[in-house]
């Protein structure tokens, strides 16, 4: 059972009543989590977890200590508070200590659906049976993962702030492979409301991609124009809004650093149609109502019309630099200033290039240019004269993300869609568009399917 606001408040008040330290922030979180996995067209593992845990951070003479537990009896809670205080006493002064927040006012966010949190195991089994049946009918081998989570948590400070939030998330990912193992398709979507998760579409798209990617040809690696479907954009850029940190930029160790200890704020770093922002109240992508350390979240624009408008400041760094702290980001939205272009129209407009739907095993290579390496996965197609010609084998890429979105490289931008990173298993989401770009750097071939 998830904690109600009343229960969350009572636990926070109890924890604070045990605190003798000068300052403290306490939190309690609860979750209901269920999952079901399938592979080789059969059910594999499936389970459930219920948990409640508390975290306590205290400061004594500006010295910090933190402790956590999931044992909720009074003796354990008292012992955990005492442990945090013991750790604080023997720690050096926290030079970045900022007094915890006093009472804040939050604007509610609607990101919780009861039906998602309490998903029925029998209806979930039926949904996955339908996915497997669709795979069997198409003569492909299905694998996938369904998860549903409900969370409720409360947090309070010694200085009088309190917040309670509920959220939920359901996701389904499906991989379809041809029995000979020469072709594979993948599709993933999530939502906070289980009623809005189109599981049949997810299965059908994965199957369609597997069938369309049969008999791939070998293409030389090199620089190609590409169309990236929203899933590929999520895999590559889903984290982008969270990388605009002022401190690392001002310390000279970020792609947004400029020579001489400066930053690129005010510079046109991306194509002039690109806007990157965070909006806690977006109906399709509700974020948390509280941003860093409990500041009430706000809509924050990071890049407007390609110009770097904001870097985000922690409370400590803002104080150091004489700035206001930034209450965000809490989610990631990329959209065009111009009317969106559909993927079909992108294909029609392409003389020669590639269409791809997923990237895999993406890792940073050079933080100065946000250079990433990784691979294409689960379908990549060659386009010529506005038409898909044939599937091709996978590639490894080495691509700078700042160059990817740079002025002159972005050709067309699609309509943002709610999509989660595939390496992140769809556990979070962003609103991201398909992108057509002029140059994408593939450095070698991969035989992997």
């Amino acid at each position, binding site marked *: 059972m998830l904690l109600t606001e009343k229960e969350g408040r009572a636990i926070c008040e109890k924890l604070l009543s045990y605190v003798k330290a000068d300052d403290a922030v306490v939190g309690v979180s609860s979750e209901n989590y269920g999952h079901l996995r399938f592979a080789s067209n059969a059910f594999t593992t499936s389970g459930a977890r219920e948990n409640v845990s508390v975290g306590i951070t205290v400061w004594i003479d500006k010295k910090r200590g933190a402790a956590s537990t999931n044992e909720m009896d009074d003796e354990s809670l008292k012992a955990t508070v005492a442990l945090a205080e013991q750790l604080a006493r023997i720690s050096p002064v926290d030079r970045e200590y900022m007094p915890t927040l006093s009472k804040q006012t939050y604007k509610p966010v609607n990101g919780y659906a009861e039906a998602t949190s309490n998903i029925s195991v029998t209806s979930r089994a039926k949904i996955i049976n339908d996915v497997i049946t669709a795979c069997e009918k198409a003569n492909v081998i299905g694998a996938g993962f369904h998860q549903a989570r409900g969370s409720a948590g409360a947090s309070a400070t010694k200085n009088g702030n309190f917040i309670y939030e509920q959220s939920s998330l359901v996701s389904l990912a499906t991989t379809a492979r041809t029995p000979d193992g020469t072709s594979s398709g993948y599709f993933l979507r999530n939502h906070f409301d289980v009623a809005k998760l189109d599981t049949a579409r997810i299965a059908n798209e994965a199957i369609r991609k597997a069938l369309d990617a049969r008999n791939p040809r070998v293409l030389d690696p090199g620089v190609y124009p590409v169309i990236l479907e929203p899933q590929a954009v999520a895999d590559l850029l889903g984290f982008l809004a969270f990388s605009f940190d002022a401190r690392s930029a001002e310390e000279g160790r970020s792609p947004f650093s400029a020579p001489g200890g400066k930053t690129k704020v005010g510079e046109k770093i991306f194509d002039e149609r690109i806007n990157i922002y965070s909006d806690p109240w977006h109906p399709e992508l509700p974020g948390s109502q509280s941003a860093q350390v409990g500041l009430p979240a706000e809509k924050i624009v990071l890049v407007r019309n390609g110009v770097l408008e904001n870097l985000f400041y922690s409370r400590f760094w803002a104080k150091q630099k004489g700035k206001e702290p930034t209450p965000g980001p809490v989610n990631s939205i990329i959209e065009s200033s111009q009317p969106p272009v559909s993927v079909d129209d992108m294909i029609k407009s392409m003389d020669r290039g590639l269409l791809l739907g997923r990237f895999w*095993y993406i890792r940073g290579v050079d933080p100065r240019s946000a250079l990433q390496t990784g691979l294409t996965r689960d379908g990549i197609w060659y386009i010529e004269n506005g038409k898909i010609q044939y599937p091709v084998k996978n590639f490894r890429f080495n691509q700078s993300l700042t160059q990817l979105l740079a002025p002159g490289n972005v050709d067309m931008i699609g309509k943002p869609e709610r999509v989660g990173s595939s390496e992140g298993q769809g556990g979070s989401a962003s609103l991201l568009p398909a992108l057509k770009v002029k140059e994408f750097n593939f450095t070698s071939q991969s035989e992997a399917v």
Partner: protein
Amino acid sequence: MTTSRRDFLKSAGVAAGALSIASLPSWIDSVTAAEEAAANGIDKNALADIALKTARKLGVTYADIRINRYRNESIATREQQVQNVSRGQNFGFGVRVLYKGTWGFASSRSVTPDDVRRITQQAVEIARANSIYQRKRISLVPVEKVVTSWKSAFEKDPFEVSIDDKIQFLLSLNEAAMKTKGVSFVNSFMGFVNEQKFYASTDGSRIEQYIIRANPSFTVTAVNRANGDFQSRSALGGPQGMGYEYIEKHDWKHEAEQAGEEAAMKLSAKAVDPGKYDLVLHPSHLWLTIHESVGHPTELDRSLWMEANYAGTSFLTPDKIGKLQFASKIMNFVADRTQPAGLATVGYDDEGVRAQRWHLIKDGTFVDWQTTRDLAAMTGKKTSYGCNHGDSWGSISFPRMPNVSLQPGPGNTSMDDLIAGVEKGILIYGDGSYSIDQQRYNFQFGGQVFWEIKNGKRGEMLRDVAYQSRTTDFWNSCDGLGGQSTYELGGSFNDGKGEPGQSNAVSHGCPVARFRQVNVLNTARK
């Protein structure tokens, strides 16, 4: 001028010695089932009886219960300040059942007889709901009944060492790293984990295990503010399945100083020219290449497409066993859950199978898999190699990687001997950027420090190096292995796999090794 932590405590009028955590509350250091019962009134054996009896009554063919406590501690510092000191613990249980050939699992933090009964029923309900549509019934190979306890080999329990000593140690590392001009930042970290695991199954086994692991690390960054360049150098010594003695025995301070010097040197190092090079790879680097391109493709669940939706499958298909020349004939890769100081070293796995040692690659040929009881049954094997693991009481256990290590060469070959045989090459230390495809064919690895090798001698420092290769091409290009004296153990504290994602700690030992004509990229060029 830096102020040492001890000086600070003195000036603040605080006696450091009096402040070590001498007596922790009893609920966080109980060790055995008997002690748990005495401390908290939780009788694990009685709870196991309830779970297994309930499951049997509901018609399962197999059930296990794991009642586990996890303790962790982490200390993070940067430059002269402490960023975080925290301790956490969590406790709970999970029940796994096999009903009509279908797995079900449920778990809770509330460890009471009523909750054990309720959660067992829930695990069976989940299995039952899914079993209606099950196409392929899962079965298990048998295992011997075991009633025992096991403790990992550590000398000094890190949870008994004072926090102040640990902080002092990290700040001294930072000071050592910051000595070099040009070094602007250093982050250092120390983390410890203690797992107290109880397992009981319908096979009659009852196993208690107590495991300690240590994870020290640091990263030094040098910045050239004039041109906006920055370079980092991370620690070469990785996590190990040891106690606090690992912190005390390894020469971390010397390494931090060296890291500072090397980070600053990297700013003005020569950019590598892309092309084919012979590579001499130090164990602090090679462990990660082993992990990704030998450890993962020999997981049997990947080969059977059980991981197709996430981690991927494997180019090692069942027909290649005993036939594929995976590596050059001088190479032997051994899976070993008994390896001293190994992060994946245990007494028993999470389904009651004793820890073992076996060859995956013998004289270069691919000969065997990593298995669990259900995977062994799927492939007609009679026993499991004991690779089942769940990362929490709340996670269903499933196949995870054992320690996988490359055996040293038979002689006393040194790193210098291997370098002497290279005309144009690169010597690489430390793990850097890494990426490999979903069937483990194509990979790219960076590193921490790169040295040019010219005419049999180590030359100047290089930068922006990464190599790309194909797994079997790479391992077959190895023509030189260092001897036992060059053997070191690297590893990862957090190897991710599975859905929902789980984390596993795993070690990989190896000697220094030489590879011929590998494709090298310059990562700073497009």
